[in-house]
């Protein structure tokens, strides 16, 4: 919303069908200039509005570092930047049209032997990691670095400039300026006017120039650095990506319920990677909406170190488990034809879990009961119901249907058992270690900040020159901005009106 408002502020050029006729600006070398009536000021404002476009013509020529060395000259040029960005855009298209990272036989099958071999030579099947694409990104980075080294010192000089040391002859030549006189003395005016300025956020500094007293105030000087924040942010993002590439890895894992592991396998290469701790999946569940679409995939993960539980989390897509710099993402699953059954003896509260293949009988050692799944109903890969055969040492077996994921309690000769059953799943996990991701996010933050500053903030400067003559004090107010001239013009105009009113107030309100 704030941005929306700022955007509107940008749009502050009134539309007039008739261009204001060009009138010579009231600027002459022999300052003080003649007094300007308020309506004339308005005209000046108008003229300056129509003159400000386009922005580019307003750029001052800044001091540059590299003007001789051809290497630096080449890499500091914006032409190179434009060419590199064009090349990046064009070549990026290739990888969106030709599927990436397929097997080499796949390319031969789909494009023919000859084309496929050319693809291999040019690394088209993995073009975003190819030497030439990374090379282009490298050129862009070098361009950014050298361009910044080239230009930033000049910009920094402007930010740090001693604006009170300005050549007074330049003041009346500024596009925004106004002269008037007052019969207050210079000291009262100084106090009164700087109070008004300060109350509007324009804190003033001052310096004596012979007979003249110069006051200066500025806002947003640092905004000149905004572009460099944007450019640096791109390098920071690249740095983060490189850190991730070097020190991180991506791996995946299929972990059946109740199983545990301390090894995962790197994506692509299949290299085993030691976790340094043990990861167990206690349970995997799929929830569905009424219309059959999947609502949630959930894995209950437990981390143990040396047999001691150190962390646990029920993860879903978009909410991974983070442990020891590794992140475990819910990414897929696999259904088995086996069943996971949990039997609880309601008297002793002993719980036992078994994995049971279809139509096989097993004996639970803790309870001394026998158990089997003698029938099941499935839709595709998903089992919805199972028929359980259950027997302990008291009499004939109980046989009953159980909904997958549900539980039931049966009573046998005074003993109660609760039996929960579900289809056995393996949860598919993506594992990522990326120590660079925070660097990337810092870069992203810097980019947004930098763009905001570069686009919506401007360096505004205001000078106020006071000179006492015999009877009166002449006042020259002038201002300049590097961007958004219209917005500044209206600020300048209203400040001007206030200051003028104050100085004509014959000391009534003066401090």
């Amino acid at each position, binding site marked *: 919303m704030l941005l929306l408002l700022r955007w509107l502020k940008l749009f502050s050029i009134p539309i007039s069908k008739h261009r204001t006729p060009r009138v010579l600006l009231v600027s002459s070398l022999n300052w003080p200039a003649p007094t300007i009536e308020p309506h004339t000021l308005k005209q000046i404002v108008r003229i300056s509005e129509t003159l400000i476009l386009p922005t580019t013509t307003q750029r001052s020529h800044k001091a540059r570092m590299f003007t001789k060395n051809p290497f630096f000259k080449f890499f500091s040029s914006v032409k190179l930047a*434009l060419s590199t960005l064009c090349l990046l855009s064009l070549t990026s298209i290739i990888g969106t049209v030709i599927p990436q990272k397929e097997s080499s036989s796949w390319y031969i099958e789909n494009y023919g032997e000859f084309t496929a071999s050319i693809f291999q030579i040019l690394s088209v099947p993995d073009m975003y990691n190819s030497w030439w694409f990374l090379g282009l990104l490298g050129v862009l980075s070098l361009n950014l670095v050298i361009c910044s080294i080239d230009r930033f010192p000049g910009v920094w000089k402007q930010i740090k400039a001693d604006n009170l040391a300005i050549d007074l002859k330049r003041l009346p030549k500024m596009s925004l300026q106004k002269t008037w006189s007052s019969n207050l003395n210079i000291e009262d005016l100084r106090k009164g006017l700087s109070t008004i300025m300060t109350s509007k956020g324009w804190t003033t500094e001052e310096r004596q120039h012979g007979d003249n007293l110069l006051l200066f105030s500025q806002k947003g000087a640092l905004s000149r650095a905004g572009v460099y924040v944007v450019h640096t942010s791109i390098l920071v993002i690249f740095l983060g990506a490189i850190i991730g590439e070097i020190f991180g890895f991506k791996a995946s894992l299929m972990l059946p319920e109740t199983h545990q592991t301390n090894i995962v396998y790197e994506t692509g290469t299949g290299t085993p990677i030691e976790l340094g701790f043990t990861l167990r999946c206690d349970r995997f569940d799929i929830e569905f909406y009424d219309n059959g679409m*999947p609502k949630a995939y959930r894995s209950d993960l437990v981390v143990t170190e040396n047999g001691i539980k150190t962390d646990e989390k029920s993860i879903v897509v*978009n909410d991974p488990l983070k442990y020891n710099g590794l992140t475990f993402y819910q990414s897929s699953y696999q259904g088995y034809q086996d069943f996971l059954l949990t039997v609880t003896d309601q008297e002793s509260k002993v719980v036992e879990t078994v994995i049971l293949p279809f139509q096989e009988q097993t004996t639970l050692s803790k309870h001394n009961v026998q158990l089997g799944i003698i029938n099941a109903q499935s839709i595709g890969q998903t089992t919805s119901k199972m028929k359980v055969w259950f027997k302990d040492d008291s009499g004939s077996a109980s046989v009953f249907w159980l909904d997958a994921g549900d539980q039931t309690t049966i009573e046998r000769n005074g003993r109660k058992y609760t039996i929960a059953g579900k289809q056995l799943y393996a949860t598919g996990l993506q594992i990522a270690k*990326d120590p660079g991701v925070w660097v990337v996010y810092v870069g992203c933050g810097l980019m947004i900040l930098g763009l905001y500053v570069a*686009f919506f903030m401007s360096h505004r400067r205001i000078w106020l020159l006071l000179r006492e003559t015999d009877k009166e004090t002449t006042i020259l107010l002038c201002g300049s901005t590097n961007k958004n001239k219209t917005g500044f013009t209206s600020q300048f105009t209203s400040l001007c009106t206030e200051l003028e009113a104050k100085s004509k107030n014959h000391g009534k309100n003066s401090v």
Partner: protein
Amino acid sequence: MNSSQLLGITTFSYLFASILYAIIFIFKAKKLGIVATFFTITAFLIQTAGLFLRWKESYEIGYGHAPLTNMYESVVFFAWVITLLYLLVEWKFKTRIIGTFTVPFAFLAMAYGSFATGINKEISPLVPALQSNWLLAHVITCFIGYAAFALAAGLGVMYLIKNTSTSKATTNDETIIGTLPALQVIDDIIHKSMVFGFLWLSVGIITGAIWADSAWGTYWSWDPKETWSLITWFIYAITLHARYTRGWGGVRIAWLAIFGFFAVLFTYYGVNFLLSGLHSYGSS
């Protein structure tokens, strides 16, 4: 009254508003201007109500999510932002002619959503990957960017029309073209729209990356949609640099605004239908 009725009315109101703006432009019927604005505002309000109602309905069905999750909902939102931005520009600049070149975008987006085959208008539940607040942030920011670029493209067309006729030196205030804002002014709004869009597109790409990271563990995987959004971003970066550092303006920038918008459209629609990738939800 349900949300699909409201959104249906919106489509026709935008059509009518577009026709009104065209009449104002072609027949110099300035007096109709206020009617066109009134109509556009009404359509916008109906659409706003429609969006909120759809949101509410999704809670009644039990799916409960903001209406920003499939192709249909995104085109409706796109149209909504275009109209919002246009109305702000109209209000700020006190000129209605711009509507002739921008309101049709809102109509076309709505018409596409309503009539194109293969667009599912049902309120459907969110599959697990889409259950993220980053997704919301991603869609909203991207579409603000896209809408600003649509505005820039419409203004680009306007610039080129005005420019061709101006160069024939037949223009005065009495001709159709004379009612268009000054070239410099159009140029300036084009630039500002692109700057605005660029900022939002940047935020959109970043929030998309954060979403991908929280869902899959990779903030950037060069899938076609991501890559095309980056290409679009490059195109506007090139345009801004050409302007800032090489002094491009006027006709060239107008063409780039139009060209850039084609990249936006391809990122938005083309990728879903011509290429394949992670963003397959958009194709239903």
